[in-house]
């Protein structure tokens, strides 16, 4: 009996030590090189960034890039308060660049290092520069709903023609625009947003069908796969990636919302110079082309358009053909109204008074 116990304990200890050794055994001592910590959105997007940006940068500049988790805007504000940031470069959305820049949470960029001449005008700011353009599209499962194409927002609200649950991103941004466009507002007269009208339209949808909300980029794909939603908003790159994997998903660029994804450097970042070099690196035309080749997010450097094949251009939201159909979000307006609308969005979710 005693021998068995001793053997058991030995096996247990050996197992624990084995797991720990296996886990912490790294082939090369990574601490020797300089590190740059980058936070991005994961999934197909980050894989494309890895191929187009991270790995070439590591090779050329002999540094090691550490990929941190999803960008957490709240944490960036907390770093401003605590004085130490754990991430050097963050991939963020437009409203955050304006909002956080105003609040002083970001480092002012060194414009000399950027190819400002060839960047799109709306893609540069004092505190951030956009590395790509993406669109939030309407997506659906073409196996369950065959024969649909080019859906607009009024179709999204049409529960008679396309019955079933709808999925939105759990943010007022883009959702309010969608509601207004579905209600007949013309894209030129969208801003400033008639918020009350938008929420009324959302209430109308809520009365007719179930609404599900997503927060992470691949949730829409899961929803469309297991029928939690019949129509969903989604990022066009993720849908394209799912299509490449063989999933029967379709998307529409009609009235899709065009937006940029920006690089910012938190105020308290440790490797500011390296971060600036990294950002400038990602804006090179060949790097921008490499990103487009891996995921259909558009370049912000005008020099990158030459040499892209036609079939890739069709899927890129800010290509000349698609630019006519997409809606460009007014991010300055959003930067001012984001906070109050997040609170109002929360109240709407709970079904509270207007």
């Amino acid at each position: 009996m005693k021998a068995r116990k001793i053997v058991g304990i030995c096996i247990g200890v050996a197992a624990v030590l084995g797991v720990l050794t296996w886990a912490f055994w790294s082939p090369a001592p990574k601490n020797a090189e300089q590190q740059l910590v980058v936070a991005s959105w994961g999934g197909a997007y980050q894989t494309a960034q890895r191929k187009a940006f991270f790995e070439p940068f590591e090779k050329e500049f002999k540094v090691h890039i550490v990929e941190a988790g999803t960008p957490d805007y709240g944490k960036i504000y907390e770093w401003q308060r605590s004085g130490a940031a754990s991430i050097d470069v963050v991939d963020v959305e437009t409203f955050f660049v304006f909002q956080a820049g105003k609040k002083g949470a970001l480092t002012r960029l060194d414009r000399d290092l950027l190819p400002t001449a060839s960047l799109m005008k709306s893609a540069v700011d004092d505190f951030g520069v956009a590395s790509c353009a993406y669109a939030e599209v309407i997506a659906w499962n073409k196996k369950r709903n065959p024969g649909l194409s080019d859906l607009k927002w009024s179709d999204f609200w049409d529960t008679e023609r396309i019955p079933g649950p709808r999925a939105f991103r759990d943010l007022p941004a883009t959702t309010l625009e969608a509601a207004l466009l579905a209600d007949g507002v013309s894209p030129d007269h969208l801003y400033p947003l008639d918020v009350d009208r938008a929420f009324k339209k959302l209430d109308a949808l809520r009365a007719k069908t179930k609404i599900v909300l997503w927060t992470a980029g691949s949730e829409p794909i899961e929803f469309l796969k297991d029928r939690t939603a019949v129509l969903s908003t989604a990022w066009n790159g993720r849908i394209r990636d799912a299509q490449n994997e063989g999933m029967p998903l379709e998307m529409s660029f009609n009235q899709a919302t065009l937006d940029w994804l920006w690089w910012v450097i938190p105020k308290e970042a440790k490797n500011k110079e390296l971060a600036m070099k990294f950002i400038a690196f990602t804006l090179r035309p060949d790097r921008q082309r490499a990103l487009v080749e891996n995921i259909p997010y558009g370049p912000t450097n005008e020099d990158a358009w030459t040499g892209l094949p036609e079939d890739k251009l069709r899927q890129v939201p800010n290509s000349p053909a698609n630019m006519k159909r997409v809606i460009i979000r007014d991010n300055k307006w959003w930067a001012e109204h984001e906070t109050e609308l997040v609170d109002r969005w929360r109240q709407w979710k709970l079904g509270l008074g207007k």
Partner: protein
Amino acid sequence: MWKLLTVLIVGAIVLFLIAPIVIALPMAVSDQTALGFPAEQFTCKWFEELATHRWREAMASSLLLGLVSAALAVVVGALAAFRVAVWPASRAAKTLSILIIAVLIVPPIWLATGYFRLFGEGGLTVLILPHTLLALPLAFSCIWYGMSRLHPALLDAASLLGASQLSTFIRVYLPGCRGYIIAAFFVAFLASWDESVFSLFLTGPNISTIPKLAFETMRMDRDLTVAAVNLVAGTALAGCLVVLLRRIDYEY
């Protein structure tokens, strides 16, 4: 007739508890991008993903954190259990009991907010306190139950024979509830192993425990590596659980 009904009820309960595991574990070897249910293709990619650096670090972090906080919880819990079992009417015993139950009652996220406000983001060490705290009520209950079943006059008998309280504690009480202490350690480890709230809100970007990494990757990348983790580690834990439960049940 009643017999059939009771069997059906118990069967439904067991089914409800086991079905999610039965469905989710095979996902560790299935390529679930194919539409429809269940998925069709066999793949090892989740196990390959398990071998990447961030998952290995997460597994080691969870393991280390679990062992450390379980050990601390058992030590502190044993001390508290001794106090409450031997002097149950004292003020200290009552205060301890109330505070320990309070840990179960209080929402962990409130504690997390407080720690975050004070310490901001941290590494693994910042998780030791919350995990130990969470494990404490479980370890305490287990060990207290064991100690309360020992004879109440044990301490006096030992001191009459010349032993100090400390050595009585170490050489009489602890061995007397050996099984309960092992159970307490195991339960405390499980509490830390599956703890997600503190891991999500208190740690920085490079630090992960398994629940935190699973939460992020499942939603961001449709990553099912956590199924692979559970297939491997979960079976080991389940084995320990089976042994423990059988001992507890057969002891009566």
